[in-house]
């Protein structure tokens, strides 16, 4: 059958090929709009990964008071090793901390070599099970704070909170950008469809005269709108992919090691959702543009 979905798609394809310049301009404009949204989503998804990683860092540093004796430290280590959820306990003296810091940073920053050993307090580094709930870790920390040998406990929670704030900001930015994209898609696809309608007014008139139903006349324009939206989103993903690869290839590997997460491209579900969003918005814009169809 010619007038089914295949026929409609074929007629849409014919129309798009005949007006490929107009279509290409529309798809390019949409791709630019979607790149903004995609970039925001890319940042948000990577920040979320870092937040997730740090939220479950699975370690804590317990800084000891200067007056802690070796016996205190040893009994403290033994007690910590017996706490449920704690998997590893390691004592780091001030001298050891100084040495480790010097090995890592002094070659790059020689001025740090003069830091005194007193600047590095002795600590006990503990590792906990990665699946240990935050509440339990917080309960352990609260108990540790009450011990006389403990000066401070660092669970890196502050960093996680900061990252969470950043993610929330990123999500808000992505929502704003999504609205901008929505407006852009409606404007661009709507204008393209109206322009196509104007340029193909004879075609529409002929279709009306030979007894085409509304659906038959509007179908190809609707398909064009969907295709423009989806292709705009796909173009944006391709462009983002190229930019992402370029940025990642220049990224210092130590940065990834430091933050503990390898930067990753948008998850496939998000990419598919972006293309689907483009298609849906394209369809809506086309329908809005088709409201005033040439009447015969």
């Amino acid at each position: 059958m010619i007038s089914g979905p295949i026929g409609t798609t074929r007629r849409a394809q014919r129309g798009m090929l005949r007006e490929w310049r107009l279509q290409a301009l529309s798809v390019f404009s949409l791709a630019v709009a979607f790149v903004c949204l995609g970039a925001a989503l890319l940042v948000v998804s990577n920040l979320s990964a870092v937040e997730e990683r740090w939220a479950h860092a699975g370690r804590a540093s317990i800084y000891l008071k200067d007056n802690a004796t070796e016996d205190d430290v040893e009994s403290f280590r033994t007690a910590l090793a017996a706490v449920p959820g704690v998997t590893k306990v390691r004592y780091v003296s001030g001298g050891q901390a100084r040495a480790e810091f010097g090995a890592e940073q002094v070659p790059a920053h020689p001025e740090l070599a003069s830091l005194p050993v007193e600047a590095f307090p002795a600590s006990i580094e503990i590792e906990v099970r990665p699946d240990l709930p935050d509440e339990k870790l917080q309960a352990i920390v609260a108990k540790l704070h009450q011990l006389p040998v403990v000066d401070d406990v660092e669970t890196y929670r502050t960093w996680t909170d900061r990252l969470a704030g950043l993610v929330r900001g990123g999500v808000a930015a992505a929502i704003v950008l999504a609205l901008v994209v929505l407006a852009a898609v409606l404007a661009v696809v709507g204008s393209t469809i109206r322009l196509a309608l104007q340029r193909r007014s004879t075609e529409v008139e002929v279709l009306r005269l030979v007894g085409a139903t509304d659906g038959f006349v509007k179908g190809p324009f609707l398909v064009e709108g969907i295709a423009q939206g989806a292709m705009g989103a796909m173009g944006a993903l391709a462009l983002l992919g190229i930019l992402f690869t370029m940025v990642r290839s220049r990224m210092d590997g130590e940065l990834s090691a430091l933050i503990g997460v390898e930067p990753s491209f948008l998850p496939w579900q998000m990419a598919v959702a972006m293309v689907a969003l483009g298609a849906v918005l394209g369809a809506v814009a086309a329908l809005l543009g088709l409201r005033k169809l040439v009447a015969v």
Partner: protein
Amino acid sequence: MPRPDDDAPPAPFRPLLRQGVRFGREAAERPILMFEDVYKSYRPGAPVLRGMNLVIERGEFVFVTGASGSGKSTLLRMLYRAETVDKGRILFMGRDVARLTAESVPFLRRNLGVVFQDFKLVKAWSVYENVAIALEVLGLPGRLIRARVGEALERVGLQGRGEDPAGVLSGGEQQRVAIARAIVGEPALLLADEPTGNLDPQLALDILGLFEEINEGGTTIFFATHDRSLLDVRARRIIVLDEGRAVDIAGTLSPPFEDQYESLPH
């Protein structure tokens, strides 16, 4: 080109006005077209048609003529529902065209063929595509469409020209494509709105001959023209639109037609 159903007895004409709703068998016995007390006005106090009455039987070839602005095009536009009547009825096979819902209008048009002075072809499409579209809207299989378009192009003398872009054809050829598009669906009624208006006299006569051939096949022709040279070619029924009414001059040739036409009030 032979048709698969050449040997089968012709089926009674049963136009389809809505999907799944056909005219009854008795519809084939009625006049194909009736105008009953039709009024149409674009400006208050200046009606184009005022109480027009007219009956056209199946298989007739009817010329509609009159001065510019007499309402020839309006009459045709009301028939294919590009315009609506202000008052009265237009019955196509007994069905009141004016009372059709907007959803039914496409199904009315599938039972009509319309040819225009400006051809109304999509220049970017090929000849084949311009003709095939009339069958594509019906949802016919591609194989059948190809066969019937080939047949229609052969009837209008454009066999083998299917791949040509419509925009590069001469005026006469373009009008032939438009006629092929109008007849490819085998409509019972063919409307022609000044179809020779853009053609030179010889081409106009050729196109008229084509309409006559189509009429010989049983299709009713409703041919609006102000070209009086066409009216004199053969004795045909002529409807003169004058003062918003239809004046019937049946089966005449000039000079009698000339006399009658000139005697009408203008």
